[in-house]
């Protein structure tokens, strides 16, 4: 019998980590992810987990310690936000290149500057090419479910890549919601024992990890990483299937909401999906065929699948909670429009940069997007690269 509880997003992720009981957690506090290591260190002090908790002096050290621990053969987890991940930058790429299945919860927060502690996606979007798998969750339940699945995905022999469990700072991390927890024993069985094939503390088979990789070999290793990212798509779906059997909760590469006959649709990540669903329900009552695609897996990017989902729409708005500052469009928008190229024509796709630095995203903001899409569908000319909710 699943356990009903009322918990904040960070609390429920910390509980998931307690249930996973990793060998090592190395973390440094940063708003809004601080509560994860805070709660977790209490579990360590109370002796309810066997984890070695490493309270490091910076995020660079946090990720370095995670890399060392994971290479040694330990199941390793951490959490951070925003500038904390900026400080990990060098090590993020090393973690993925060394094929270390570290699982990190990234509580999305705007990267400074200007200095800001509130939610947008500039942190994870900046790391989209770092070779980490990125999974996004709409609410507390999804943050919990995703971090448990992340262990299995990361450690799968066809993947062996680090995973970022992304969810919105404050909106999800600090809001208390009803959640359904899985029993400790079931989580333990689901994630299983961690038995890496190669690890540094294996005295029977001494190895060197992360050596200098000169021009004769580095390209082949990057190509290998790229292949693991492609293979991850299949593994993510297999793990989701097992998770569905365990909990009855269904996960895919993305969620389609009212997309069967949608003429106008928005593409979003994380908590905005909840607001958008509310607006779509209202529009549907008025007979407007509105829909939503909520991306769950952004890396690997589900190129073909997402285009299929959007192919029957007349007009689509891709909403980016991070600006690429490239004079062209946000990161999700450029990925989606590239995916369309040469495959499907006739779907009008526009971009909105929205919610930067924690700017509230209200139902009337999403209504405005749908109203724009309806006009666009009927032939009105519109710019491609738009801002939503900024004072003009």
């Amino acid at each position, binding site marked *: 019998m699943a356990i009903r509880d009322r918990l904040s997003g960070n609390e429920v992720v910390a509980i998931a980590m307690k249930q996973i009981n990793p060998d090592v957690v190395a973390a440094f506090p940063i708003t809004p992810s601080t509560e994860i290591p805070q709660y977790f260190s209490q579990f360590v002090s109370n002796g309810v987990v066997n984890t070695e908790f490493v309270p490091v002096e910076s995020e660079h050290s946090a990720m370095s310690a995670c890399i060392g621990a994971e290479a040694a053969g330990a199941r390793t987890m951490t959490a951070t936000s925003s500038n904390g991940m900026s400080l990990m930058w060098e090590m993020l790429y090393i973690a993925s290149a*060394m094929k270390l299945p570290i699982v990190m919860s990234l509580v999305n927060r705007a990267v400074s500057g200007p200095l800001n502690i509130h939610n947008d996606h500039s942190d994870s979007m900046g790391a989209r090419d770092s070779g980490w798998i990125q999974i996004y969750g709409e609410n507390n339940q999804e943050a919990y479910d995703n971090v448990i699945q992340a262990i299995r995905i990361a450690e799968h022999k066809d993947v062996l890549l680090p995973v970022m469990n992304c969810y919105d700072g404050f909106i999800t991390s600090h809001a208390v919601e009803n959640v359904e927890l899985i029993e400790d024993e079931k989580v333990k069985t689901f994630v299983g024992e961690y038995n890496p094939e190669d690890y540094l503390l294996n005295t029977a088979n001494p*190895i060197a*990890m992360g050596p200098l990789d000169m021009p004769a070999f580095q390209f082949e290793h990057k190509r290998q990483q790229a292949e693991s990212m492609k293979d991850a798509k299949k593994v993510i779906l297999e793990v989701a299937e097992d998770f569905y059997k365990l909990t009855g909760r269904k996960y895919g590469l993305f969620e389609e909401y009212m997309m069967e006959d949608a003429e106008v649709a928005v593409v979003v990540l994380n908590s905005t999906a909840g607001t958008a669903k509310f607006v779509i329900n209202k529009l549907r009552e008025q007979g407007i065929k509105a829909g939503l695609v909520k991306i769950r897996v952004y890396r690997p990017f589900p190129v073909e699948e997402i285009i299929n989902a959007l192919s029957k729409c007349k007009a689509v708005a891709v909403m980016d909670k991070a600006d690429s500052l490239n004079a062209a469009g946000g990161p999700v928008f450029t990925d989606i429009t590239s995916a369309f190229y040469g495959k499907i024509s006739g779907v009008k796709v526009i971009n909105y940069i929205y919610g930067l630095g924690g700017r509230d995203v209200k139902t009337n903001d999403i209504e405005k997007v749908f109203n724009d899409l309806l006009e666009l569908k009927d032939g009105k000319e519109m710019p491609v690269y738009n801002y939503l909710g900024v004072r003009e």
Partner: protein
Amino acid sequence: MSNRDKYLSTVDVKWKDITPGGTIYEAGNAKEFKTGDWRSQKPIWIEEKCKQCSLCPPVCPDSSIPVNGDGKREEFDYDHCKGCGVCAKVCPFDAIDFVNEG
């Protein structure tokens, strides 16, 4: 993905066969990486002047002065000597000349 049998040692290794993440499965492989061609100057051992005093082998940063079972030094390992000249400097008997490559 991983292939532990095919050891990463040739420039012909394909990406499907290369060791995952660059992990090296055998010890002592630095000798396969020849650094001798980095040299612009090189030491020359003048055996007849050499007293086998054993001052030069321990100062070589690249272990390029082999010492045999009798504790005597042998000819330089020019595959790995980078031509730093420390051995020539330390020799009290002018038994190591230091000349330009070329």
